[in-house]
C-alpha cells in the first residue's frame, strides 16, 4: 500500500518523474489563483455585489478577525501569509471528496515545506517588528541558561507542525484504504466524513499555531509589561488555591 502520494508516479519523461504530490499541489495553486483572479477581476462597491465577492469578503474578513483576536498588533501585515497557509491546506484537504484525488498534505514533503515557511517567517516578522537586537534578545529572555532550550524549541515545534499535519491527513487516507478492503461502502464513507472534519480543523490549527508563534515572537515585551501590572491574573490563582 502507498502511504504517501509521493510514490504515485503520474507521468515520467526521460527520467524526470512527476509524482502525484507535485501535480496536485500545482492543481490546487492554479485553482486558488484562478479562482481569486476571477472573483477580484471586477470588484464593485455599489449596491449590487456579486455573490462570489461576498463569499471572498467573508473568508478574508473571518481570517482577519481570527488574527486580530490572537492579539497581533497589525493583522493586515500577517493576513497574506496566514491566509495563504489556511486556504492552501483547507483546499488541499477538502478536495478529498473528489474521486481519484490524494491530498498532497498527506506527504511529509509538503508539510515539511509549509513548516519551513513558518520557521523562516517567524524571525522575519519579529525582526521587522522589533529589529535584529530585539529579536535576538528574546532568545535569552528569562536568562542565558534558557538559550539552548529556546533554540531547540524553535526547531522541535517546526517538526511538530510538519508531522502533525502529515500524520492526521495520512492517517485519514490510510484508514479509508484499509476499511475499503475490510468493510466496503458504509464505514469508509463515515471515515471520509471524519477526514473532512479533521482536515478542516488541521488547516485551522496550522494557521492558528503559525500565528501564535509569530505573535509570541513579535510582542514578547508587551506581554512582560502586561504581566507586571496584571491584576487580572491574581484572583484566578487565589480561586484555584481555594479549590
Amino acid at each position, binding site marked *: 500500500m502507498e502511504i504517501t502520494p509521493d510514490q504515485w508516479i503520474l507521468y515520467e519523461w526521460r527520467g524526470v518523474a512527476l509524482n502525484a504530490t507535485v501535480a496536485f499541489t500545482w492543481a490546487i495553486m492554479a485553482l486558488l489563483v484562478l479562482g481569486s483572479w476571477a472573483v477580484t477581476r471586477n470588484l464593485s462597491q455599489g449596491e449590487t455585489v456579486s455573490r462570489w465577492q461576498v463569499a471572498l469578503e467573508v473568508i478574508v474578513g473571518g481570517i482577519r478577525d481570527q488574527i486580530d*483576536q*490572537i492579539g497581533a498588533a497589525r493583522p493586515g501585515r500577517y493576513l497574506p501569509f496566514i491566509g495563504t497557509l489556511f486556504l492552501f491546506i483547507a483546499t488541499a484537504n477538502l478536495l478529498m471528496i473528489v474521486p481519484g484525488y490524494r491530498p498532497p498534505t498527506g506527504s511529509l514533503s509538503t508539510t515539511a515545506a509549509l513548516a519551513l515557511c513558518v520557521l523562516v517567517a517567524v524571525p522575519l516578522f519579529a525582526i521587522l517588528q522589533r529589529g535584529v537586537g530585539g529579536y535576538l534578545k528574546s532568545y535569552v529572555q528569562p536568562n542565558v541558561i534558557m538559550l539552548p532550550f529556546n533554540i531547540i524549541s524553535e526547531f522541535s515545534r517546526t517538526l511538530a507542525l510538519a*508531522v502533525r499535519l502529515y*500524520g492526521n491527513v495520512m*492517517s485519514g487516507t490510510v484508514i479509508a484504504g484499509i476499511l475499503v478492503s475490510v468493510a466496503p461502502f458504509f464505514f469508509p464513507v463515515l471515515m471520509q466524513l471524519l477526514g473532512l472534519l479533521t482536515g478542516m480543523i*488541521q488547516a485551522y*490549527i496550522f494557521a*492558528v499555531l503559525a500565528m*501564535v508563534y509569530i505573535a509570541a515572537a513579535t510582542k514578547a515585551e508587551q506581554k512582560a509589561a502586561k504581566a507586571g501590572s496584571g491584576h487580572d491574573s491574581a484572583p484566578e490563582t487565589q480561586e484555584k488555591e481555594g479549590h
Partner: protein
Amino acid sequence: MDPSIWISIASIVTAGLTIAIGSVGPALGEGRAAAQALSALAQQPDASNTITRTLFVSLAMIESTAIYCFVVAMILIFANPFTQTATQAAGG
C-alpha cells in the same frame, strides 16, 4: 526460521504496542482538557471565543503525541527499514 520473518513479527507486535500504549496518554489528556474547557465555558460563556480557540490549539498539541505514535507504527508496518536490510543481507 528466516530472520526476516522474525523482523516482521517484531515489527507488527511493536506497532500494535506503540499505538495501544501511545494512545492512552493523549486520550486521558484530551478528556481532561475538554472537561476543563466545558466547565470554563459554563462559568464564562462570554469568553467562549478565546476558550474554544485555546482548546483547539491545546488539543492539537496533546494529540500530536498520539500522531507521532501512529506515524512510528505506520513506518514499522509499511516502510520498515530493517526488512530491506535483512533481505539484502540474506541475498548478498
